[in-house]
């Protein structure tokens, strides 16, 4: 799967938290390639391991958490082999991250200008004065009006949308090659979300960055991503280009997720739910993790965990239906048969 055109290659990443009740395998064998200049979406429900995957890339996992295994190649070098000192040079410089909650990631006692300047000074060695004028430029770039006044303000004096713009300004201050955005718009209203997504798209194009966009909103994925990884219970269950994923979703979980989505642009009588709940960390099924909720689950599914398999169109899916070993209905079509299978 190795490819020169990938800025990042995650191989079999395993990150666990060792808590009183035992080991929580938050990320359990995730493999994912991020092509240069593209946006890759990671979708999945709460607790599926999206944030921990990206924190692992940044090497920000703290006790009781630990990256247990795998590799994360960035431009050919394994980030997991780097020292903390080497990582500090990469973090915020080559690879930047925007977090879910803008208010908690900004320091309330420093002005916006001080916070952006600090990052620029650390990584680019500019003088205090030059760093501040660069900060003003950055605020302008992310569309904050009267940036010269804004650099003097404190985070609480800005609205949620503006704070998120500031976070983006900080993340982009050193022209990173890769931007990881963890639910950058979840806490925002849709009209502000639209502004921020447009901004990220535009900056990606003009600066030639790659972006990992973490979200649980399939609408956001459809509008901003080139490729999509769907995660379920610590694993990638489907990886495809965005058009194929929405036109021909292959994994039963992906189909279920799409069917449960209430749409504002069409009428639906009843939402087609996925029965049951996401498995608890300590109660992971032995075989396919989706088996207890899957309308297609067959004998092999409850006994053996399927691998992430390459499909004919070059995408990937983790489901026995697409393997030679499939022991259920050979004619099954996941997308078309999901509803009928569900009601049986």
């Amino acid at each position, binding site marked *: 799967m190795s490819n020169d055109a990938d800025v990042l290659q995650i191989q079999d990443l395993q990150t666990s938290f060792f808590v009183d009740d035992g080991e929580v395998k938050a990320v359990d064998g995730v493999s994912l390639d991020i092509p240069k200049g593209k946006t890759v979406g990671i979708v999945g*429900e*709460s607790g599926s391991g999206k944030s921990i995957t990206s924190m692992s890339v940044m090497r920000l996992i703290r006790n009781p958490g630990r990256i247990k295994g795998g590799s994360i190649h960035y431009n050919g070098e394994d980030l997991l082999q780097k020292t903390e000192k080497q990582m500090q040079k990469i973090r915020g410089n080559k690879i930047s991250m925007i977090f879910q909650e803008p208010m908690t990631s900004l320091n309330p006692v420093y002005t916006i200008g001080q916070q952006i300047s600090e990052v620029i000074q650390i990584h680019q060695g500019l003088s205090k004065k030059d760093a501040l004028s660069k900060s003003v430029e950055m605020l302008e770039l992310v569309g904050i*009006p009267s940036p010269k006044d804004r650099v003097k303000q404190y985070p609480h004096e800005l*609205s949620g*949308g*503006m704070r998120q713009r500031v976070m983006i300004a900080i993340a982009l201050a050193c022209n990173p090659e890769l931007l990881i955005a963890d639910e950058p718009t979840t806490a925002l*209203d*849709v*009209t*502000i*979300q*639209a*502004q921020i*997504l*447009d901004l990220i798209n535009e900056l990606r194009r003009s600066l030639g960055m790659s972006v990992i966009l973490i979200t*649980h*909103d*399939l*609408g*956001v*994925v*459809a*509008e*901003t991503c080139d490729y999509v990884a769907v995660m379920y219970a610590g694993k990638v269950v489907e990886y495809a280009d*965005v*058009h194929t994923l*929405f*036109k021909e979703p292959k994994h039963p979980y992906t189909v*279920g*997720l*799409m069917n*449960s*989505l*209430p*749409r*504002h*642009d069409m*009428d*639906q009588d*009843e*939402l*087609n*739910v*996925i*029965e049951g*709940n*996401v498995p608890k960390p300590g109660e992971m099924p032995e075989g396919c993790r989706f088996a207890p909720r899957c309308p297609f689950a067959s004998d092999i599914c409850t006994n053996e965990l399927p691998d992430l398999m390459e499909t004919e169109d070059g995408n990937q899916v983790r489901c026995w239906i697409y393997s030679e070993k499939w022991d259920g209905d050979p004619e099954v079509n996941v997308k078309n048969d999901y509803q009928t299978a569900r009601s049986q």
Partner: protein
Amino acid sequence: MTTKLLEVNNLKQYFPIKGGVFGRTVNHVKAVDDVSFYVNEGETLSIVGESGCGKSTTGRAVLRLDEPTNGNIQFNGENLLDLNKKEMRKKRKDMQIIFQDPYASINPRQTVRQVLEEAMAIQDAVPKSERVDKMMELLDTVGLGSHQLDRFPHEFSGGQRQRVGIARALAVDPTFIICDESVSALDVSIQAQVLNLLKNLQQQYNLTYLFIAHDLGVVRHISDRVAVMYLGKIVEIGEKKEIFDNPKHPYTKSLLSAIPVPDPSHKQERIVLKGDVPSPIDPPSGCRFHTRCPFATDKCRDEKPELRKTETMTGTHEAACHYIEDIEAGRHKAAE
């Protein structure tokens, strides 16, 4: 025959802002500013709008969880604002509310049995001897299963906890339920389960819902009629189909166009609004939307538009904009 179960007229909710050395009221947050609407028996009216526009405040005022500053609230033909505290508490047997956060709204130290017992006891809604049977029935109704009666909230998932909240609301046989962002915190697969449940319960018990939400997909799914709020005012209201397929107010249109559609081949014209929602402490003059509206003129800055109906609107559809006809006919264009 449709009967209005709830009718709200000229509702105002101003929160005082204290300031200065003497802690005097220096200003007001005009959270809800002259809002009128009704909800027919057995239907769902949704209130949508951006955060801080006054949705929750409207719901709380209807239940008199906050005392409204001004207005008239008729429920079942009775003016709620005429009731004293005790009478109002009794009324809450008919009027229940389910909140956004299933974690915060349920006491973590109580089992499901205790939560339901308490709800029934407060209203004395069910004779003691029948309570356990009723609880089992409720748990089955909300899809939790009666075997979960002695469990604690932390043993449940978010969706299950929201079901406990629903069971608690249903425990006193209400006719009217306010759902304030009741599914917003849930993952889509769980959200769908709870939405289906709310819809089924409505049919089964002829419930009337005031549904507060910011997710327009959810709203389209659950509502009969929809009210769109902006900065403390209703700017457009009407049958669901009208609001989604024939919106007239520039704010409603931009709100709808801002929602990402889960279909990569769909290319929508997006109306990107500039700036943020202004402060409700000192709302813009004239039309409150004029600071962000691409169609705003001097008239919009000076004159307040009233809710009204034009020839191209059907049913109970109304919108508050000076230029509905002109925008539609292409005579009035958005500024660059």
